[in-house]
């Protein structure tokens, strides 16, 4: 199996200078972002509508407006609104204007399903997007299939493109198993062969562990131990001490969210970060914001950085900055990208009917802010570049962002179609 690796360095530093204008004063492509036909609500509450009137395409979005991801989810909502405004300004989707209805999942799987039901059964939306937690997405996916409604989700659960795959469902991020497989070669090259794996005891953590172990299987590497913390753990001092005592070359963390923030803070206090290189698939904006300086040096996949050097990213970041006077985050980028994927699929299909649109989604390719995105036909796994990045300080954000070390393609790291477990 061949893999394509593109070495990129110094993107974060270059980008920092390049962005100074657009984040500060809303310059750049400000003219483009002037709204013409939108009637946005201005606030960010759920069940709000940005509409274009007429025979519009209706998109329902689900946002986890609950602590601790509420701020990130509000950015996601902004990403949706921005994408809809831009699409409508450019003539809509295949000539039809787009109307969007936002709903709040409360970061609760039960509520997420209930809100999905409202959007589909009551609002008759043509597309469902969102629900940024894997238990929520796993609940919604089979329902959308029953209701013949396409569902795009930023959730990166391995199961969504595996045994829980559905014809309706397209995860727009790479699953943690594939992501981990992509990070491992860089980790071994940079840090050495001896390591430690620590995960949280839940499905996502298990996927990460399996991905790393699979990637290490045919390589000259030794895992000293695999340790596990409870899903709701906050104190990791015992694990940090164990890793410090064993003194491996690297530690791979299947830990996310507030738990990762706590782990990194405690690792910094123990001096572990200076002793052992830390890697992991998770580095979302709330995590970087919460960890602050403690995440610097940690290497992960950069889902998004506003400093990535591409014309599409420049356009997205400057539009967002002009509209909201702030930098977009991962969630905003995901939303922007998903809506453009849907646009491409409907235009390819020439209709919004379920069968045609899902078939089109299996074949379209869109160049998003962080590179080309598409879906594998057999299981709808997301195919996009994996940007392996080291977290470095960023004055513009006020908290660290990813400085890309290497970019790889995800296709070569995915499990073969016949082994994915998807049998839809």
């Amino acid at each position: 199996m061949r893999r394509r690796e593109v070495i990129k360095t110094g993107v974060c530093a270059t980008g920092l200078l390049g962005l100074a204008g657009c984040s500060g004063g809303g310059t750049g492509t400000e003219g483009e972002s002037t709204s013409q036909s939108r009637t946005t609500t201005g606030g960010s509450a759920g069940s709000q509508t940005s509409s274009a009137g007429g025979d519009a395409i209706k998109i329902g979005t689900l946002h986890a407006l609950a602590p601790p991801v509420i701020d990130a989810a509000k950015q996601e909502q902004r990403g949706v609104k921005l994408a809809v405004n831009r699409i409508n300004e450019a003539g809509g989707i295949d000539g039809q204007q787009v109307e969007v209805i936002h709903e709040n999942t409360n970061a609760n799987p039960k509520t997420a399903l209930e809100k999905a039901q409202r959007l589909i059964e009551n609002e008759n939306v043509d597309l469902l997007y969102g629900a940024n937690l894997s238990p929520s997405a796993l609940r919604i996916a089979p329902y959308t299939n029953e209701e013949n409604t396409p569902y795009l989700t930023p959730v990166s659960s391995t199961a969504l493109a595996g045994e829980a795959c559905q014809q309706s469902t397209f995860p727009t991020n790479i699953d943690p198993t594939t992501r981990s497989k992509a990070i491992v070669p860089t980790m071994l090259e940079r840090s050495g062969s001896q390591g430690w794996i620590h995960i949280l005891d839940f499905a996502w953590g298990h996927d990460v562990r399996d991905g790393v172990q699979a990637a290490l299987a045919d390589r000259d590497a030794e895992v000293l131990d695999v340790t596990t913390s409870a899903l709701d753990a906050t104190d990791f001092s015992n694990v940090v001490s164990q890793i410090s005592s064993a003194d491996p070359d690297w530690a791979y963390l299947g830990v996310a969210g507030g738990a990762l923030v706590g782990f990194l803070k405690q690792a910094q206090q123990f001096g572990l970060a200076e002793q052992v290189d830390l890697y992991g698939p998770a580095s979302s904006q709330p995590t970087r914001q919460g960890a602050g300086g403690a995440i610097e040096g940690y290497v992960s996949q950069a889902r998004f950085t506003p400093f990535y050097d591409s014309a599409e990213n420049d356009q997205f970041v400057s539009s967002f900055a002009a509209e909201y006077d702030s930098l977009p985050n991962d969630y905003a980028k995901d939303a922007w990208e998903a809506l453009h994927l849907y646009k491409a699929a409907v235009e390819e299909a020439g209709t919004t009917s379920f069968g045609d649109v899902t078939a089109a989604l299996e074949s379209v390719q869109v160049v998003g802010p962080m590179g080309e995105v598409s879906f594998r036909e057999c299981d709808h796994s997301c195919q996009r570049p994996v940007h392996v990045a080291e977290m470095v300080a960023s004055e513009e954000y006020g908290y660290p962002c990813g400085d890309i070390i290497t970019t790889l393609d995800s296709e070569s790291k995915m499990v073969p179609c016949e082994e994915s477990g998807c049998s839809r």
Partner: protein
Amino acid sequence: MSFSNLFVVQLLNGVALGLLYVLVASGLSVIFGVSGILNFAHGSLYMLGAYLGVVVMGATGNFWLALLLAPLLVGAASGVIERLTLHHLYDRPVAYQLLLTFGLSLMIIEGTGAVFGSQRAFPTPEALAGPIQFGGIFYPKYRLFVIGASILVSIGIWAFFRYTDFGLVVRAGSQNREMVKSLGIDVSRYFTLVFVLGSVLAAVAGVLAAPLFAVNTNMGNEILLVSFIVVILGGLGSFRGSVIAGLLIGVTTTLGETYVPQLTGFYIYGILLGTLLLRPQGLFGQYDLAKVASKASKISYQRRIDPVPIRDRRALAAVAVMALIPIIAVGVGSAYYVGVLSIMLVWGLIALSLDLALGRLGLLSFGHAAFFGLGAYATGLLFLNATNSLLVALLVAVPLTVAVAWLVGAVSIRFAGVFFAMVTLAITQLFYQLSVTWTDLTGGSDGLTALPSPTLLGVTVDSTVVFYYITLASVVVTYGLVVRMLDSPFGRVIEAIREGERRTSFLGYDTSVYKRRTLALSGGVAGVAGVLYAGSQSVVTPNVLHWTISGDALFSVILGGMGTLFGPLIGGGIYAGMQLLLSSYIDSWRFVLGLLLVLTVMFAPRGLVSVYSKLAGFVGPRFGRPDGSAGEGGPSVPEASANASEENR
């Protein structure tokens, strides 16, 4: 690092964690010891301390100033909160106080998030950054500081209560409030001061914890649960007990997770359960458990509101309206609201099941999430592995939840009040942990996915409307059975136990048997709700076993009207519908929900049924029951009060 050095480091880790628990728990313990209130807002005050610490740090760059100012600000805020709310509720049953503080907690968390953001960074103070070496050990300076600061604060609290007049009054008040009152001391003033002091301690812990953990608006939830456990484990009101229990939990979990990692996640609840079963009053509890328990659990209603029999014309009219709704909803082109109604009915059933234990028997249970969740998981597993017949699911899941509830009763029925609440909470969390950990059976955190549609008598039920009618029929039958069972000699014994357990036992009844049976019945009703829930959803996740389901049910019971059975049924439905509605239109909907909780507890303690009975009394007796019980007017606040008559005899 050698084994012995690593052991010492892990011991220090456990001590640092344990002392942090001690700081939070000692504030909780002091408040409980004096006022008898189990303060669910304590975790949010800990979180507020951390946030205000961030703000002071941001403004001044000085950690020490943050450590001083943030707790003072939290103390001032908590004083105002206590005077406006809790101060008026000290004579109410535990359930009301608990719910009020839960509402306050929601308001504080949402308010903090709205003002300061849901996530903040809090770096380690520069002077305390990095590790220090002693012997062959490197240990973080900041953790050593936390250990030292916690010990100092703990000694300070102990000395304060031991050697000051204030401490003397507080200690006396915690042992016998009436005696202190009779000496001419205004105890209520001390309640406020103790609440402020407890909150200051929570905030100190919050600032100390901020450089260790993620600072977000959820940070208080986890430590609150552990702190409750520390307080109960140590012995209610025992400061020494809290210190020992905090250290025991901190050290046991740290060493346990290091050397026996297979039990990770089970240690805390296992320790609590084990200790209470062996020593019910906790490690250092000095009191007569039976006396404290009976005092804490008694609920006596000044005004009876009897359950409405299912054959009553009002009940029949309500059922008829419910039966007509889908026809209208489908007529206007939306089956969605029919699905929402199904969920509301299921939620009503959960509230009804809790009311059986709490309203009819005085048992403040947090175990109902376990009964509900087990019903849902049993159904999910049956659907996936054996049959998707709804009747078979009911026949399997309901006896299972009855059996589990009976067993829970067998080990915990000797407790009451907050003791019973904590033991059942520990059992619920053990089930929750099991559902997350036992991936092969439960599907782990993702739960049981892709459940097939249920069948009834061989016909697949894949229509929302049909399932709604099944749910409605199940609710009607269950409610009718429950009301019928309670309108019997069995029901009258239950009522007698709630009003006075000792008197009932003097009459020759084995009260424990009746309590166990009622809890089993209650568990069965929650099981029915679980079956219906799983039948209407395509997935069952660990959330259904989380203790917060019990918290929601508690609010539903009080919102509807505790002890009336039909009130909680309505309250549960309204609560579920309200959550969906509020969250659709308001960002900070939890703040609104918290405010509603607070207002309900303070101004409508008998819930919605009292509104109805007042209206009925106003309109005329012809709308009331023949005996006039539901149509009576009369005062509504306070209508349910802690009945201390029995133990005062």
